């Protein structure tokens, strides 16, 4: 009987381990599916490695949260293949500049924003981001707002 109990207990443990493994595997599969969904606008890794996009300097720093930040920046992009490419502001969904039959390019802009902006290089007329970069907007003072209220003393 003790041996039978041990066998039953062992079997129960094995089942639990299998169940946990299945859950972990399912979680990973689910995570991979989500990752695939969020990366749907990004080129496959072997393609994206062909493209590079940098912006200097960064970040853009304003004094107080909510203030517009100003920064003169230079974008530099390159691609292993000559083609028609565009630099796009993903945050505002606007095309900043397009180049024809080029493998690299530069663009100077006067960045002005209250928020961090994401940028990407795309093939012309494509929604796939070949390379991405970001201009983060930071603040020195991050003020908070007191809760509104009426007279508290009375």
């Amino acid at each position, binding site marked *: 009987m003790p041996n039978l109990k041990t066998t039953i207990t062992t079997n129960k443990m094995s089942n639990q381990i299998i169940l946990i493994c299945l859950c972990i595997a399912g979680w990973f599969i689910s995570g991979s599916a989500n990752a695939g969904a969020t990366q749907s606008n990004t080129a496959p890794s072997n393609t994206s490695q062909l493209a590079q996009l940098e912006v200097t300097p960064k970040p853009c*720093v*304003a*004094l*107080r949260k909510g203030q517009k930040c100003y920064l003169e920046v230079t974008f530099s992009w390159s691609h292993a293949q000559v083609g028609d490419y565009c630099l796009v502001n993903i945050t505002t969904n606007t095309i900043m500049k397009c180049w024809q039959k080029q493998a690299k390019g530069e663009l100077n802009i006067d960045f002005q924003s209250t928020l961090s902006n994401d940028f990407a290089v795309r093939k012309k007329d494509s929604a796939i981001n070949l390379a991405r970069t970001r201009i983060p907007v930071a603040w020195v*003072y991050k*003020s908070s*707002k*007191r809760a509104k*209220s009426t007279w*508290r003393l009375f």
Partner: protein
Amino acid sequence: MNNKNLHKSRIPHLSLAAMIFAGASVSGGSFASDISHNVRSGTQQAGSSEDYLEIGLMHLMRDEPTFLGKGGSYTNTSLIVNGSYNWNNLFIESYSESGHGLVVGYNAFDNERWSLDFMVTTDWGEVSFEHDGRYFFDEDKLMAGGRLSGYIGDYIVQFALNQDATGDHNGTTASALIGRSWQYRNWNFHGIVGAEYVSAKLNDYYVGVSAEDAAALNDYYARVSAETRIDAYEADASVGFSSEFGVTYPISEDWVFRATARAVTVPDEISDSPYYGYKKSVLTSLRTSISYVF
């Protein structure tokens, strides 16, 4: 020379408008701390509060009326600590650009436009001298009072009333300030003008000379063969004006640069005191600082 016949009240005849136009006004510096910080950082709403701490180095240059035996200009480089902490409407703040020392208070009311604080503060020490043009004393006095701040369009106004809380002189001050800021790219410029009333009790406590003190001082000067003679003096109430123009620039997310120029009138009720050897009617100062914000 100064004597009791000159002790009548001589409120400056310059109007506030004229002083603003001349760019040489305001005092009220004793209450400028909160408004100066808010104006500098471009705060647009009443009740905007923040918890922060910063440490920096400040270089100060000022030209001033001084007590007997001292020069008329002063430069100094010192460590500054600015900070604010708010908890359940209680707050503690220290801002070196203001005329205050430490401020401890309670926010009794605030909405989008107005905010009312009750507070106690030390602001009569050396730190406030270039802000209010009053007196150069190392001695701090505890004051209790309130300040009402209003945020009207691009402008911030602040009215304050303070009373001596120590019982040493029972003096009173009342001030009104108005300020605004302008942003040019990441540079934040600001200007503040205002006026401050100081009661006779407070003025007399610091720059008044009793007959007994005058006699004792003259006796001392006679013994050391000095030609200086002191008359008794009773200071009256005064009104002073001041103006401030400054710029704040965020060097990085953690470092801030500030520069501020101030001009403050020194009321006759103060500068007529026989204690003052180098008399001026306007005190000017220039401060620059670099601070690390935690």
